[in-house]
């Protein structure tokens, strides 16, 4: 795990493919502002796989759309940096961004039934991105489309390439969507709930396909899902999101076996497993906070079984626990750095946060390479 550098410290080292720093994407609607993504930072090395987990509304899809810069009104990226191959994507022109989308960064969408255009053959749709980005001839792009269909395990690609989406099953279509995403040899694949809309049996096939293709192509993978089982199967590292913030991150094994954040723990204990057969399932009590009225301190505090004094008034920092682990919980902040509320609670400064340096891990000098 590499610690994302702070904003304004220039491009990350070369082995870091994508680095998101302090990303804030807000939706400004009539009733107020929804901080869908509220200060998210993470990074992905070349060829690495990262899972972004969270329940509906936690901001994981908005994070992925922000990376692609596909956020539409009333949404807006209000702060942050997204470094990709030495460039801050948020500073690029729309034209440059179009060149990156579908070429260096591609996306696999959730709904294979609707994310293919019904009036074009699947071949035309795969060939389009090849023609746009590689300036290939019609003939070459078409051959590439056939090759991609074969790669994603569609039988009879020469015939299938001429078919329309409505002639294919959901699993087939998702294979086509994956073929589209891979046609230009991307460096980063963003898969937003790629298996959610599929049958369970097809899910396994598609996950396996994504894994195989990721390994073969050497592309990095950002897998967005609400399904911990999918994450455990597919990725090396995981980041857990809750109410617009990353609450915990680390390697898959450590995070899922020894969760540090109460939310992650709650998620894991609510998975049906044979261990608890015959017993009631654990549930996380309460509901996701209203995005218009988020708790002032820790956003998970109202539902947290371990809540103690600093949790209500103070927002915990994303604390570095070990070289590979971070968690946003006061439980893991050393006693000396936990802020204490002044005796009359009402007089506490509104929205007080601990001193800024406390929220940062042992300082990483700007621009220094991380082994």
């Amino acid at each position, binding site marked *: 795990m590499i610690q994302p550098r702070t904003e304004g410290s220039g491009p990350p080292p070369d082995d870091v493919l994508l680095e998101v720093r302090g990303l804030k994407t807000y939706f400004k609607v009539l009733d107020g502002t929804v901080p869908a993504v509220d200060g998210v930072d993470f990074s992905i090395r070349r060829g690495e796989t990262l899972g972004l987990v969270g329940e509906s509304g936690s901001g994981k899809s908005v994070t992925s759309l922000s990376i*692609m810069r*596909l956020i539409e009104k009333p949404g807006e990226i209000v702060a942050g940096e997204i470094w990709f191959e030495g460039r801050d994507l948020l500073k690029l022109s729309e034209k440059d961004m*179009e*060149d*990156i*989308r*579908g*070429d260096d960064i*591609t*996306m696999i*969408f959730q*709904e294979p039934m*609707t*994310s*293919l*255009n*019904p*009036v*074009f*053959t699947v071949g035309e749709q795969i060939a*389009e*991105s090849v023609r*746009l*980005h590689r300036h290939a001839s019609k003939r070459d792009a078409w051959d590439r489309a056939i090759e991609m269909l074969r790669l994603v*395990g*569609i*039988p*009879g690609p020469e*015939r299938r390439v*001429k*078919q*329309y989406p409505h*002639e294919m*099953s959901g*699993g*087939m279509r998702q294979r086509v*969507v994956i073929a*589209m995403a891979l046609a230009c040899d991307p460096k980063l694949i963003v898969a937003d709930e790629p298996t959610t809309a599929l049958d*369970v*049996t097809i*899910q*396994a*096939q598609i*996950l*396996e*396909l994504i894994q195989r293709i990721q390994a073969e192509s050497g592309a990095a993978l950002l897998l967005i899902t609400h399904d*911990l*089982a999918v994450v*455990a*199967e597919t990725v090396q590292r995981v980041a857990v999101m809750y109410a617009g913030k990353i609450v915990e991150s680390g390697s*898959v*094994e450590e995070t*899922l*076996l020894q969760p540090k954040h109460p939310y992650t723990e709650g998620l894991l204990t609510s*998975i*049906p*497993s*044979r*261990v608890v057969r015959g017993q009631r399932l654990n549930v996380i009590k309460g509901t996701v906070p209203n995005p218009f009225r988020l708790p002032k301190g820790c956003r998970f505090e109202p539902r947290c079984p371990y809540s103690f004094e600093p949790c209500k008034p103070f927002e915990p920092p994303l604390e570095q626990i070990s070289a590979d682990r971070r968690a946003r919980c006061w439980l893991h902040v050393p006693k000396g750095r936990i802020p204490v509320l002044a005796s009359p609670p009402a007089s506490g400064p509104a929205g007080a946060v601990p001193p800024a340096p406390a929220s940062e891990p042992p300082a990483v000098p700007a621009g220094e390479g991380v082994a």
Partner: protein
Amino acid sequence: MTLPDLQSPLALQYGGPSGGAPPETEDVEVALESLSQWQLAWRRFKLHRLAAIGLVIFGAMVLVAILGPILLPYDPLFIPNATRPGGDAPSLAHLFGTDNVGRDVFRMVINGARISVTIGIFSMIIAGVVGVFIGAIAGYVGGVTDNVLMRVVDVFFAIPFLFVILVAARFFGQGQLSSLILIFGLLSWPLIARLVRAMFLSLREADFVEAARAVGVSDIRITFRHILPSALGPVIVAMTLIMASNIVLEAFVSYLGFGLSEDQTSWGNALSNAQTVLSQGNWWWAFFPGMAIALTVLAINFIGDGLRDALDPRSRL
């Protein structure tokens, strides 16, 4: 992966790690012919009997418009003089009779077809191109652009259509075919624009549009390559209706004497001239051009009806 506690639910849920791509059942499927949406639509259209009849009639009318004036030339300035006042009744020599100065009504109707069909088709194309363009921009871009363009459309709908046509035909047209086409076309696009905008408003939210953006397709290309084909069905239907109404409009405007000049043979002009002798019981001079208009418009409307069914993706035949 060594996740003893998690492995079991996973194994339950996914049937465990399986090696290699499992065979797809579709592997054995026989070679199915692949039909595009347009091929499917054509198949459905052919099953619509009235529409098929309409297509035959309209096709014949287009053929007449192209070949008629060549095979049976007609010169409105040549006055053979009628053998009897008010014109001859239909006979073998003159199938549709003659007018008050002895001109053959059959040839008149056949030559009029060229003008009516030309006006119908070209004003429809103008309305279609302008309407699709404006509607697509309004629907895809949205916001202020959409507002401005749609207010322009509102203004067009608020204008007393007929009055503008009469004035425009008189002042800009001077009875010319091309100016009449232009006026009709430029006055009938707002209907198409509204329709296209509505289609775009819903289609721009479609997942495949976002997928296209994620592949790096530019906005212009998304608008015209990705969204437009899906919106085209209702637009084509509306365009047929515009064609039919513009053919009637030409007859109407010409009848009022604001349309084509006297030396051009149109159905409207024929009707207009025929009213002078109608009271004498000479029905044929008005009847046959009138029938030609009615038949053409009916045929086009049948085609439109058939297209509406054929292009509706929800109808599955």
